[in-house]
């Protein structure tokens, strides 16, 4: 399991939700939050591709955030 902490001012919560749905075939996800971060625990389903799954998931979230014009206003 890897914990990814996405800063609320930099990443969109909705983007994370959408990314989790899209990547559910490749990893298990557990979501929580802190005042500053969206926290996503990622457990890849394929050990050999773990780095790739985690990295591409992170990229996907960033991409969706940029497509939306940035993180939502707090």
């Amino acid at each position: 399991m890897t914990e990814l902490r996405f800063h609320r001012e930099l990443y969109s919560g909705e983007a994370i939700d959408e990314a989790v749905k899209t990547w559910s075939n490749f990893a298990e996800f557990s979501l929580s939050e802190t005042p500053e971060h969206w926290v996503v625990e990622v457990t890849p389903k394929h050990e050999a591709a773990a780095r790739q799954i985690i990295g591409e998931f992170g990229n996907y979230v960033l991409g969706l955030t940029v497509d939306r014009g940035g993180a939502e206003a707090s």
Partner: protein
Amino acid sequence: MSTDNQTSFSDIPEAVASVSATDRSVSINLDAEVYPLQAVYGAAYIFLDRCFVFIDRPAEGSYRVTLSAKQAVEESEALRALVGEFANELLSCAWRHQITQDNRVAIETVTVQAIAGAMGEPSLDDLADFDFTDEALDDPLGIAQSWEEKHGRKSPGEDKAEGDAATSEEASA
């Protein structure tokens, strides 16, 4: 991303860029005063095809961008090149952000004329499909504003209403 085993490049201050020896990623610290967030997004986006990109906010007033090359790179030269390319792209994005703001009217004018010139006038069918309830375009020059809205002066209707109210107040005083 781990911050253990950080090393640096000989020609870049460690405060600006550092290398993580464990997972061969580079982290670049950015002054948020110098680089607007839109520029950080712009530069980061361009690296999505060859790096895993992560952005964080270690402290108020700064960003940290971590780049991990997708293809395994062992040599520090390759990581150094990533930092350099990212920094160049970031500078380009930051400068463009400023230029676009400064020249917004000129850019919009040419774009509108070019697109309008290419599209031509709408047909009756196009107008029938158009959603007139949609929000109006931005109005950066305030052309759609009335003089009163722009300069804070009341419209004749408001003036009269206030005049009537003042008269009735005086009358009742």
